[in-house]
């Protein structure tokens, strides 16, 4: 009898083993592949989902090689470092790995200690890139430059620049902290008391009034810079090299890189594993990390203009860090100290509410018949996150006192227009309009955008960062040429960001984005997320 029992048990065991083997064919398949990834590299059943700063988009070829070698998929989702920090505070983290620009955001965000194996992949300082001729004119070539020197050039109106939003992206935040130090007279470290000064407010506003365009991500800032006609930008050294390669190829003037000695910060690009208890994923992650940190790949990464390894830029890669572009591969990078976390957040809040140039947002929102039901519900929810200030503050998207928000609900024609000034009751009342507006009729986004441009004529646009934010869910009637005429008439570069929803026609939206040097956000998966991102750009 006993024997039979044992045989049964063994059989059961064998069955279990084979069943497990079958199951395991689907193992290491880190959950459902999220449709939201920005880029999918390689193919295979196993997936490594990485949420990363946009600057790492330049490393896709390196990642793709690994994905192919291992026959896996790598899904890259690009978000600002601050978004990544916030994500780490959430209950669910739908990624296997995080790769923000700087370890600062990792250690501030990872309060639940879920990130392990974090290691720096490469280093890149945040620097100023200024058109060669202008850099020469300003006397910045071949000498040490301080943040004060840059400020003087900005104050005199000679230097205008692009930088990412300090509350959304690491490069913008780093540069902004550098500005704070300089304006405060280079204290040992910034304290909460320092920030209360009225003088600081006046000076910082003046400084940030020199910002021509902003963006929620560093890589897109570089792309925007290359599309537009700007004099300078604040960005990572590696993206300056990338931009210069492109500029040189086009035969255009390159940027001269300036390292402000009293306002420098470093992005150390840590790649860390989000431990959710899946050993297979952990192993895969470690394999990727080992690959990225191997001598060969570190060298390849160095050739993209990132500083890697322990011994600085190698002799053979010196040609990447060109002296005629102002690059100093052998420079001792001595950064400023980041303030303590609570002070840092205070700095970011002040940037959003008091210091940055006020935004002038024109929301053109689709209320056509096809939006009825779910679509409209999602729209109202998304706008609630932006307009109700308590919600907006969670994502450092709160409005400033002087901010202007215009609402243009449209269907086949413009339904109405509403304007809210500041961050008080007018703004929250705008939300009631969004909520109460009835849906129905056709779609003509061009008519709404044209009305938006007309309304902008009433403002001194140099005092604002203006943008049209357009949401539509269908093929639009009307015509692009109508929009083009109105745009020419206004004669100012107003980016038209659009959010693609429902059955929107991507080509129509891309046309608008290309024409106005803006970009299209995909709101089909998560509309709230798309609105948040778009607001981060303005």
């Amino acid at each position, binding site marked *: 009898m006993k024997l039979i029992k044992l045989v049964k048990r063994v059989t059961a065991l064998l069955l279990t083993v084979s069943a497990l083997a079958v199951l395991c064919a689907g193992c290491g398949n880190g959950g459902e592949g999220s449709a939201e990834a920005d880029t999918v590299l390689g193919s295979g059943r196993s997936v490594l989902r990485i949420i990363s700063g946009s600057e790492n988009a330049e490393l896709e070829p390196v990642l793709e090689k690994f994905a192919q070698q291992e026959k896996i998929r790598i899904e890259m989702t690009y978000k600002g470092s601050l978004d990544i920090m916030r994500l780490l505070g959430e209950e669910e983290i739908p990624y296997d790995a995080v790769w923000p620009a700087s370890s600062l955001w990792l250690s501030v965000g990872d309060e639940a200690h879920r990130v392990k194996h974090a290691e720096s992949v490469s*280093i890149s300082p945040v620097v100023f890139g200024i058109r060669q001729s202008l850099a020469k004119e300003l006397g910045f070539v071949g000498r040490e430059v301080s943040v004060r020197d840059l400020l003087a050039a900005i104050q005199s109106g000679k230097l205008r620049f692009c930088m990412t939003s300090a509350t959304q992206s690491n490069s913008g935040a780093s540069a902004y902290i550098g500005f704070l130090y300089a304006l405060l007279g280079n204290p040992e470290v910034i304290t909460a008391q320092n920030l209360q000064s009225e003088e600081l407010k006046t000076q910082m506003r003046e400084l940030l009034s020199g910002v021509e365009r902003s963006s929620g991500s560093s890589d897109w800032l570089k792309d925007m810079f290359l599309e537009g006609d700007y004099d300078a930008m604040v960005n990572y050294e590696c993206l300056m090299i990338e931009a210069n390669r492109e500029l040189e190829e086009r035969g255009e003037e390159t940027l001269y890189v300036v390292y402000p000695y009293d306002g420098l910060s470093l992005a150390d690009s840590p790649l860390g594993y989000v431990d959710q208890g899946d050993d297979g994923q952990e192993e895969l992650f470690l394999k990727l990390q080992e690959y990225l940190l191997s001598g060969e790949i570190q060298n390849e990464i160095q050739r993209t203009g990132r500083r890697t390894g322990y011994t600085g830029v190698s002799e053979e890669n010196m040609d990447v860090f060109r002296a005629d572009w102002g690059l100093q591969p052998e420079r001792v990078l001595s950064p400023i100290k980041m303030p303590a976390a609570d002070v840092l957040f205070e700095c970011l809040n002040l940037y959003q509410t008091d210091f940055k140039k006020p935004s002038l947002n024109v929301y053109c929102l689709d209320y056509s018949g096809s939006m009825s039901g779910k679509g409209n519900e999602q729209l109202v929810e998304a706008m609630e996150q932006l307009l109700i200030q308590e919600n907006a503050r969670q994502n450092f998207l709160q409005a400033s006192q002087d901010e202007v928000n215009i609402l243009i609900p449209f269907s086949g024609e413009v339904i109405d227009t509403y304007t809210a000034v500041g961050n008080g009751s007018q703004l929250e009342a705008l939300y009631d309009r969004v909520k109460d507006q009835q849906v129905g009729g056709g779609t003509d986004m061009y008519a709404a955008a044209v009305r938006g441009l007309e309304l902008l004529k009433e403002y001194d646009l140099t005092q604002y960062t203006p943008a049209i934010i357009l949401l539509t869910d269908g093929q639009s009637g009307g015509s692009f040429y109508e929009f083009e005429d109105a745009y020419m008439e206004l004669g100012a570069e107003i980016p038209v960001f659009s959010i693609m929803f429902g059955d929107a026609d991507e080509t129509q939206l891309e046309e608008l984005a290309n024409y106005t040097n803006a970009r299209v956000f995909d709101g089909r998966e998560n509309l709230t997320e798309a609105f948040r991102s778009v607001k981060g750009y303005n």
Partner: protein
Amino acid sequence: MKTKLIGLGILAAVVVAAVVYVAVSRSRTVTEISGYVGGEKIGLLEDEEVQEILRDRYRLTIDYAKAGSIDMITADASGRDFLFPSNQTALELYEQINGKPVKSEIILNTPIVLYTRSAVADALVAEGIASETEGVCYVDMEKLTEAIETGKTWADIGLPQLYGSITVGTTDPTKSNSGNMFAGLLANTLCGGVANESSLPEILPRLKSIFQKLGYMESSSSDLFDQFLKTGMGAKPLIAGYENQLLEFAAEDPATWEQVKEDIVMLYPTPTVWSSHVYIALDEKGTAGIDALLDEDIQRLAWEKHGFRTGVYDTPSAGEHFGVPGLAEEITQVAPMPDADTMDQIIKAL
């Protein structure tokens, strides 16, 4: 008939083999224990040889989440079997909050040291802040603290390529052990002995202003050390860490160490303090980790591959194999850490 018998015989053999297999595999069941571990010990726990000994001799695997030594005491410990902080103060704090743990034991020891680059070390020697005796570099804590308190800049001591004033980069003393112990060491230095509650009114404000100058601080010793190595002299000219961190790095990656060793200098503070890595078992299951980690071979590996001085405070065997110049054979100048209540007040003030 014969074939039938043979058939039965084979069947019996298969069954017996299966029974043996089931029995053996049962006795081999490996228990997984999980807990919070200070980042500096991860190399040891990830060591395959160590894992093998744990598995084969003790049928144990150790899963961990990284946490600062102080942080882990107050963190949510549900589902965890042990804590493995890097000092005894953490144990004392634990006892104050939760009472006596199921079991606790010191597993490893390593002194707090400072790490710097050769150019900085030379400048510190020239200033009389550091000195070299028999190939080992020592830093005079009193003089160093004075330089920090008076706001001397790196440029003042002949290092104009470094921005700002002289500081020692540490982890956040309220979260992580090496920073916490360095705060204890500074407290001792400021009062010229071992700091206690009566010396606090005098030293707390000074301690606070020293740490305030650091701004944002990393919460893990291993991250700080990694940044020290990778971001170069400019970003982290002088940091506090554990002696074992460099020894482990040199043992794990001798090729890289060979490239950078000329430039990296380990400085022993006089006096220094011991970081005693104490294992706190939170439940019965967790106690198994203590015996296992005290295994003779694990202790040997802990020194040879990871640089932890074990059992006794001096080196269990000579450390030549590390190829780290300036490794002190004995640590003679050691002061005790301030007691837990004093440290608690220091942490609260910082």
